[in-house]
């Protein structure tokens, strides 16, 4: 890893279909917004380097890949995440009432017990709001989550949401330090082959 990077964090985004999870992600990572954005295809996770309190932190932000459409996220999606963002649409009561189920799923499958959770009420640019700021705040308080209202369309609150989340993660001891991650397993890739393959010449020299 680049020595100037303090750590890499896995952040995931969940919530009902159509609340703007991918839009928030793309607004934050690429500063783009597509009004007509179709259901998510091809977005696995996005990587972004940010600077928090003088430290460079690499974020791998995971999208649901549309698997939430029929409420069928894989448990493995939640593994080893340090941060989780629950999103609802302030103009959709239904997306807010489904938060309990998404929260339960997060609690069930998150492997870091001290994972930092954030609630985002998205689409505050739109009229006909159905969920008040107070309701969102109440839900977040009840579940000890960070809370922010945002708009991926107007950029309102997006940058701040991610920054606050990362700041909180960095302040949480035992959540992201190298020590904690060394307990985990190894990743496979052609770049990480370790040890000497047991070539034939190895045998032959002994015979």
């Amino acid at each position, binding site marked *: 890893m680049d020595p100037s990077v303090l750590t890499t964090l896995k952040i995931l985004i969940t919530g009902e279909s159509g609340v703007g999870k991918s839009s928030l992600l793309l607004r934050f990572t690429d500063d783009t917004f597509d009004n007509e954005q179709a259901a998510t295809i091809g977005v696995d996770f996005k990587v972004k380097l940010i600077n928090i309190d003088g430290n460079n932190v690499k974020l791998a932000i995971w999208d649901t890949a549309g698997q939430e459409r029929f409420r069928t996220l*894989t448990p493995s999606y939640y593994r080893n995440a340090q941060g989780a963002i629950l999103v609802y649409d302030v103009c959709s009561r239904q997306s807010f009432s489904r938060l309990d189920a998404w929260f339960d799923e997060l609690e069930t499958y998150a492997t870091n017990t001290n994972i930092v959770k954030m609630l985002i009420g998205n689409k505050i640019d739109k009229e006909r709001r159905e969920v008040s700021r107070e309701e969102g705040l109440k839900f977040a308080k009840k579940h000890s989550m960070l809370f922010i209202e945002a708009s991926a369309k107007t950029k309102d609150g997006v940058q701040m949401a991610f920054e606050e989340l990362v700041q909180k993660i960095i302040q949480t001891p035992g959540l992201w330090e190298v020590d904690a991650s060394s307990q985990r397993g190894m990743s496979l890739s052609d770049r990480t082959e370790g040890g000497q*393959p047991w070539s034939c010449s190895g045998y032959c020299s*002994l015979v």
Partner: protein
Amino acid sequence: MTDDIPSPCDLLVIGTGLTESIVASAASRIGKQVVHVDHRDFYGSNWATFSFNNLHNVLGVNKGLTECIEETKKETYSIHIGLNSNTVLNVVEKWFISDEDVEATIDNQLRIEETNNGILKQTWTKSEVLKHSRKFNFDLSPKLLYSKGEMVEVLISSGICRYAEFKNVSSIYTYDNVESGLLPVPCSRADIFNSKDITMIEKRLLMKILSMCVEYETKPEKFQEDEMGNFGNFLDAHKIQGKVRKYLIDSVAMAKESTNFQDAVKNIQKFVRSIGRYGNTPFLWTLYGSGELPQCFCRCSAVFGGVYCLKRSTRSIIIGSDGQATGIMCDNQNLKAKFILIEDSLNPLATIKSGISRAILVTNKALTSNDQAVLINLPSLNGKEPVRILELSASTMACPQGLYVVHLITRQVTTAIEDLREVIDTFFSAVESNENEALHKPQIIWSLHFNINEYESYADMLPLNLYSSPGPNSSMDFDNHVIQARNIFKSMFPDEDFLPRVPDPEDVILEGSAEEVVLQESLENQEVHNVHE
């Protein structure tokens, strides 16, 4: 919500087991519209990994499903999908510890007692174990990966390896019936060199056989015709006896005396080539259990547009007047598809071929001093089938600290309880047994026995566009299933690449968006596909 499932689609996959998930991801990857359904409420079908609570739910659910009879339109008929087929059967769960709740125990605190000889002994109660339900990951079908096997290669070449993490199996044992004990199998060159179990001459012999087998294709002149009948004959011809013979048969070749020579050599080659890639033994264990792997492929499929629906009862396959499958009835929706893939255990045209006998134990102590993942290959004793034991510690995420999850796997002869009784009695003790014995053997805290059916289906009995995919078998690794998944894919889409590498999100950092590249790619594929039609 039901209306959202795209129909028609290119490929409809029923069941989220490993083979189905690999095919689904490969098809999505080249831009085909995939719909992947499962009547269960979890991923992985008979490959799944469960927590304590989920395990209980699932074993209950398995019994409750009923079949529904569907009316079908004229000129078509339908085959009912046997959702109530009990693939997992003879389930027996047993607790060996008391039910009582210990007053004032906080979550992670265990009662620690000092035993006579000063060893710290942790005592668990049932409620304490269940409090940690989520820390347990019980595999229905635990399997290992050869570090240079098909599964590892496809995970790496496709990039899907990013969704999982692994631990190297720390050591391999076989059973020495002369000395009645576990015998460590030396894997690396250094292991063989340092082994105190075999003599210098035996070491040389072992090295010679291994290198001969590795070079089998390039230096065939080293082999005599008459040696190449079964593996036993070959070892006889080279005067391989004693422990070296045990190593080679039980652990390196994963064979029997009667195994065909060529098959044994293939296994030896895979074993030797896999050593040293990630560690001292050739095998990897998937962190959080083998059930992670189907999920990895499903995730890849979803990233490329695959639509996932669990808890969808898939009642029947509809066959058109031309004898081809046209789609399925899924809840009350008729989902049309060009190709259908169904897992064997759901396929009404598949028959039970054989079975696997399984036991899962939770124990309080490791069988050996090793602390990660240990593989024990027990040879066939008293005419019984060989038994494989996998012991997993907390570091593999199989259980909480201080406990071990032990998997026993063998081919089914009678029932899981009968098939595995002797082995379990040899290595483990129930808590009730007398104290001296109990201090040496790991004690069983909880056990679960079950059998899993293995199915087979004959392609010539199926419509040409309906494929049936194999569920878990008793083999130790996944490679055969990867090969079969590739064959199914190639048969559906003969001109397409099987799981080409996905663009690495790390490589597109701070550049244009990754999904544009991907979308363009899949659009191109779509066009190619349309031209073919």
